[in-house]
C-alpha cells in the first residue's frame, strides 16, 4: 500500500510534558484525494500536521511522502500552511513570495504572477501584507505553499476565522487545486459541514488517536446500504411486496408513521416500480442518508457540542 500512497504516517507519536497528544497515528492519503482530517479542537490535528511538515520532532513513527521517508528529499513534494498563515507583514504579498521562493532555489517572476493569479491576489499583490484581510492572508498562505510546485498540499484549518464568503472562496480554491492543478490535498478542520462538502476521504482523530478512516461514502453507508423512508397508501400490500424482495428489508416504522426500509441507493427506483406494479400508490420515497456529523458522533461518542 505504501507505494500507492501520496502521504502516509505510520505509528506517529508525540508527547508534551509526558502527555501523549498524538498516539500511534497511521494515516493514508491517496494520490488525488481531498482528505479531510477531522477532530474536535485539541484532538491533535495541528500537532500531526506539524510533525508531517517537519516543524516539530516526532517521538516515534514515520512519515512517508510517495514512499520516501527522507525528509529533505520528500519536502519538495509538500506545500502547506499551519493555522493562520504568518507572512512577513512588512513585505508586500509579491515580496513575501519572492523571499520564500528564494528558499526553494529561487522562483521566476512569471511563476509568482501565475501563483498570484491562481489564488486571485494579483490586484493586491503589491500592497503590504499587514493591510490584508484574514481571507487574503489565507489565500497568500496557499500561494506561498504553491511556490515549491508541490504534489501534496497540507492545509491546517484553512477557513478558520473567515466569514461565509471567505470560507466559500477558500473551498473553491481547494477544489481548483485538486482538479485543475492535480494536487493531493490534506485539509484539517473541525467544521464537519466544510469537510463533507470538500473531501472524498476522511480520517477522524480523537484524543490523539485515529478512530475512523476511509472514503466518505463508505463510512456513511457501509456496503452501500442506507435507510429509506417510504410513504404509501396501502401499508399492508407494501409490506407484503417488501418481504418478497431479497435486497430490501423492513427495519420498522418512522415516528411519523412511514415505513423504514434498508436497501442500497441504486435499488430505490426498482423498489418504486415493484410497488406501483403491485398497485401500491407511492406518495414519497425518501433516502435517509447518514451525515458526517451523525457518523462523527457515532464514532467519537461526542455530543456534538465539541464540534461545529
Amino acid at each position, binding site marked *: 500500500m505504501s507505494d500507492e500512497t501520496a502521504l502516509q504516517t505510520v505509528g506517529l507519536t508525540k508527547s508534551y510534558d509526558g502527555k501523549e497528544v498524538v498516539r500511534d497515528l497511521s494515516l493514508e492519503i491517496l494520490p488525488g484525494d481531498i482528505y479531510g482530517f477531522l477532530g474536535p479542537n485539541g484532538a491533535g490535528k495541528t500537532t500531526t500536521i*506539524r510533525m508531517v*511538515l*517537519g*516543524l*516539530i*520532532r516526532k517521538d516515534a513513527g514515520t512519515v512517508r511522502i510517495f514512499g520516501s521517508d527522507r525528509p*529533505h528529499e520528500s*519536502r*519538495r513534494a*509538500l*506545500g*502547506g500552511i*499551519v493555522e493562520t*498563515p*504568518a*507572512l*512577513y*507583514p*512588512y*513585505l508586500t504579498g509579491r*515580496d513575501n513570495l*519572492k*523571499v*520564500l521562493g*528564494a*528558499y*526553494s*532555489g*529561487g522562483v521566476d517572476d512569471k511563476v509568482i504572477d501565475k501563483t498570484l493569479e491562481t489564488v486571485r491576489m494579483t490586484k493586491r499583490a503589491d500592497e503590504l501584507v499587514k493591510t490584508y484581510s484574514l481571507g487574503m492572508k489565507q489565500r497568500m498562505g496557499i500561494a*506561498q*505553499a504553491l511556490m*515549491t510546485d508541490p504534489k501534496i498540499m497540507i492545509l491546517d484549518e484553512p477557513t478558520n476565522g473567515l466569514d461565509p464568503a471567505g470560507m466559500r472562496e477558500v473551498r473553491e480554491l481547494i477544489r481548483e487545486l485538486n482538479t485543475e492543478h492535480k494536487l493531493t490535498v490534506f485539509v484539517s478542520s473541525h467544521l464537519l459541514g466544510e469537510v463533507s462538502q470538500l473531501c472524498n476521504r476522511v480520517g477522524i482523530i480523537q484524543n490523539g488517536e485515529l478512530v475512523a478512516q476511509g472514503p466518505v461514502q463508505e463510512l456513511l453507508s457501509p456496503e452501500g446500504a442506507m435507510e429509506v423512508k417510504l410513504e404509501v397508501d396501502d401499508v399492508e400490500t407494501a409490506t407484503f411486496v417488501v418481504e418478497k424482495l431479497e435486497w430490501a428489508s423492513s427495519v420498522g416504522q418512522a415516528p411519523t408513521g412511514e415505513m423504514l426500509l434498508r436497501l442500497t441507493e441504486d435499488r430505490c427506483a426498482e423498489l418504486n416500480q415493484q410497488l406501483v406494479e403491485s398497485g401500491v400508490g407511492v406518495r414519497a420515497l425518501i433516502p435517509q442518508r447518514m451525515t458526517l456529523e451523525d457518523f462523527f458522533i457515532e464514532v467519537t461518542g461526542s455530543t456534538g457540542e465539541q464540534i461545529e
Partner: protein
Amino acid sequence: MSDFTKLVQDEAVLLGHTVRAEWTKIWRRGFGRAGLVIAAAHGVLVFLVMFGIYAVGRWGPFKAQGAEEFDIFDGLQAGEWTLFSLFLPVMGIVLMAVIGELYGGEYAQRTYSLLMIRPVPRWKIFVSKFIAAYGYVLLVMLVATLIATVLGLAAFGGSREMGMGDPLLTGMAEPPGFGARLGQLCVTFLALAYTMLPILAITAMMAIITRSTALTVTYVIILMVIDGGVWLTFPWVTQALEYEIFEQIKPYTILASRLFWWEYFFNMEPMPLKELISESWKALLLALGYSAAAIGAAIAVFTVQDVE
C-alpha cells in the same frame, strides 16, 4: 562539468538567493535605513568630539604654548577613532538588537514555519541569515568610518608627523605618511570586522535559545560586561587578593582579541614585527574560535528544536 562542481555551483546559487532574501528582510523591516542613519550620526559624533578637542587645544582658554602647531589629528584618525573608541559600546548594542531581531523576531512573528517547510535544511537558513547579518554589520561599520574620515580629512587634512606607521603593512620600514596611515585604518577596520564576528555569533545563538530580542540583547550585554570585567575589574581583585587566575584568563577573553590591537596602535614603542604577526594571528584565531563555538551551538539547537 563534474558532479562536484555542479553541486558547488548549485549550492552557491541557492546561497545567493537565500542571503538576498534575508537582506531584503533587513532593509524592508527598516533596519537598513535605521542602521545607516545611526552609523552616519556616529561618524559625525566622533568627528565632533575630535574637533572639539582640536578647537579647545588651538583656540580655547587653555591654549597650550605654540598652539598654532596643535595638529595632533589627521583625517584618517577620525575613522580610526570611530572604529576603536565608540563603535563597540554604541553601535554594538544597535547591531545586537538588529541581529537578535533577525533571528529571534521570526519566532515571535511565527514566520519560521514558512521557512522550515521549504526544501532546505535548517542549517542553511541559519547560515543565510548569518551572512546577511554580517554583511549588514560591515556596511554599517564602513558608513560610520567613511563619514568620520571624510569629515576628518576636510577639517584636519592628511597625515601628520605624529601619526603612526603601520608595521603590519610597511614592516616599519616606511616613515609615517598618508599611505602608512591609510594602511593602519584598513587594519583597524579588519580588526574590528573580525572582532564583531564572535559578538554576532553569540547574539545569534542567544536569539535562538531565548527566542526573544530583548532577552538576547540583555544576555549578550551581560556576557560582554563579564568578558570585559576580566580586564577592568578583576585586575583589582587580582591585586587585592593576590589571586592570579584572572591574569591567566585575560588572554582568552573576547575582548583580548580586540585589546591586542588597541595596545598595538597606541604603544609608542611598537612591538617587533615577528611578535606582532604572531600576536595578531592569536587574536584572529581567538575571535574565530569563539565564533565557531557559538555558531556550532546555535546550529545544533536550531536544527533540532521544535519551531512552535
